[in-house]
């Protein structure tokens, strides 16, 4: 048994994912509460060189494998590493890949699972996770039962922790104990189709301008793009807009899309159905522009402007540019 806090560190194309840097900071925070150290379980292309995670809060790293295969194919190596370390908690990113790998660990080792969470802490040597359930209508605090096996697996939402900047130091990297890939290895990517145009990573944007059904068409997103550019942000969408094919699904915010926590969220022509709300309700500032005075978003936005987005948004963009002198 140790007081170590482990976290899943995903790599892609030679670099750690944003989630790896966020979870490194989260693990460091929890380790200071448990009196332990942090250990990264690094996987994916580039993860063999996980020493760089040291600057972001990782004490050491175990390299699970650096092939470009689905995350769950690293499950056997992760199990071997977890058995050896026996950490108190394992933080996993609440992304499709992170959830799959976490799920395999839960199934293979019979572990308590929590999340997705926006807050987690160690209290009296025990993991306590805070989770919004039932579409955010209830907040529950949970912990493992007394004799539960370790680690507690905690799914952590994007932007819950802020990466440590300007850190120094290198994590010591060791290879995972030998393991057989098992049945997960038989799922293989047989075709890969990257997008023709660049797609913004919404989870990394501090400003998001999102469009919904009220935007009306793919062309209707043009003024939203302009506003996002003026604010230095990215464009997102509701499911209605993604389903209509106006924007790619990667830009969908909500229960079945991205969960975001920007400093500013601007919802244009978005009604604010519960399924969308769960994807953006922790945004620090919410501005909504909608011509329907009864739109549900008017009940939880910080500023609700009733009006025509096609009139207001271009004027707003022009005014912001004027003030910024650009």
């Amino acid at each position, binding site marked *: 048994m140790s007081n170590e806090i482990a976290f899943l560190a995903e790599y892609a194309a030679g670099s750690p994912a944003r989630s790896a840097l966020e979870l490194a900071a989260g693990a460091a925070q929890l380790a200071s509460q448990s009196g332990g150290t942090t250990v990264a379980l690094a996987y994916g292309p580039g993860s063999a060189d996980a020493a760089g995670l040291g600057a972001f809060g990782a004490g050491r790293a175990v390299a699970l494998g650096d092939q470009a295969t689905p995350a769950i194919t690293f499950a056997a190596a992760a199990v071997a590493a977890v058995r050896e370390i026996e950490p108190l908690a394992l933080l996993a990113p609440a992304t499709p890949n992170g959830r799959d790998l*976490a799920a395999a660990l839960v199934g293979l080792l019979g572990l308590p699972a929590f999340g997705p969470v926006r807050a987690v802490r160690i209290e009296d040597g025990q993991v306590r996770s805070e989770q919004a359930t039932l579409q955010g209508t209830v907040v529950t605090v949970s912990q493992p039962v007394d004799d539960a096996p370790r680690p507690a697996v905690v799914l952590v939402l994007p932007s819950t922790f802020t990466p440590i900047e300007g850190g120094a130091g290198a994590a010591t990297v060791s290879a995972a104990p030998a393991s057989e890939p098992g049945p997960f290895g038989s799922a293989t990517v047989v075709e890969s189709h990257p997008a023709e145009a660049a797609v913004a990573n919404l989870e990394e944007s501090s400003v998001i301008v999102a469009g919904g059904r009220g935007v009306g068409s793919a062309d209707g997103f043009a003024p939203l793009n302009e506003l996002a550019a003026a604010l230095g942000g990215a464009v997102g969408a509701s499911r209605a807009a993604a389903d209509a094919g106006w924007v790619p699904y990667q830009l969908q915010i909500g229960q079945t899309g991205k969960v975001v926590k920007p*400093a500013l969220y601007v919802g244009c022509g978005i009604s604010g159905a519960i399924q969308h709300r769960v994807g953006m309700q922790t945004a620090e500032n919410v501005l909504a522009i909608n011509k329907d005075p009864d739109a549900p978003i008017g009940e939880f936005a910080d500023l*609700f402007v009733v009006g025509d987005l096609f009139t207001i948004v271009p004027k707003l963009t022009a005014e912001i540019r004027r003030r910024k002198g650009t």
Partner: protein
Amino acid sequence: MRIVVCIKQVPATTAEKRYTADLRLDRAAAEAVINPLDEYAIEQALRLQEAGAVESVGFLSMGPEQAAEALRRALAMGGDDATLVTDPALAGADEWATARVLAAALDRLAPDVALMGMASDDARGSLVPGAVAALRGLPLLSYGSELRVEGAVARIRRLTATGFDIVEAPLPVVASVTDQVGEPRYASLKGIMAAKRKPMETWSLADLGLAPGDLHGAALTRVVEARKPEAKPPTERVENVSPDEAVARIVDWLAERKLI
């Protein structure tokens, strides 16, 4: 070729939710529906059956006795048969216990594809498909926006950060699909009548060869506190003003909050 779709009965999105004295969701008090994201898995399975790629579609649920209603509703949409796993020892089951029970039931049902929705509406952990695959020692095809079965393999289309992949695995598999597979159908009156005659089996934990002790008393986790989220400050409304006035108010608001 046979698919078994795993479904969960959840409180309706609009239902008033309450917690019992021991901090469990009072499922009896809330209007219950099929988890909306599971309806997409049902739809995907029925489309494969209609296309002739699959011979039979079964449904499986773990829950209280009233979860039989959810299974009956699924049978009204289509498919052939249903299995309910219900046992008083399963009250408050967590994700691991749920996965363990579903895996044991699926071992008996032995479908070519065990299909699930991408998440449940109430807890949203999305861990059950992967945990079931791990427990059954089968490959996982997760978050498919489309599922196909051809010959001895299953294939999904899966979104990536910038595009999509096609991921393939040999049958049998555990798979999950998203809400991009197509809008779920409504049950027709004829379907509702037909559902009443479709076979439904009920299994207890003992029928699966499991004892409560195998499940750590249903959960490895416990809720120690349940509360309402903190109320946000009231919304500031801007209406019945000219567009220029509205823009001025927005800019002031952004500046006050140091967002521009």
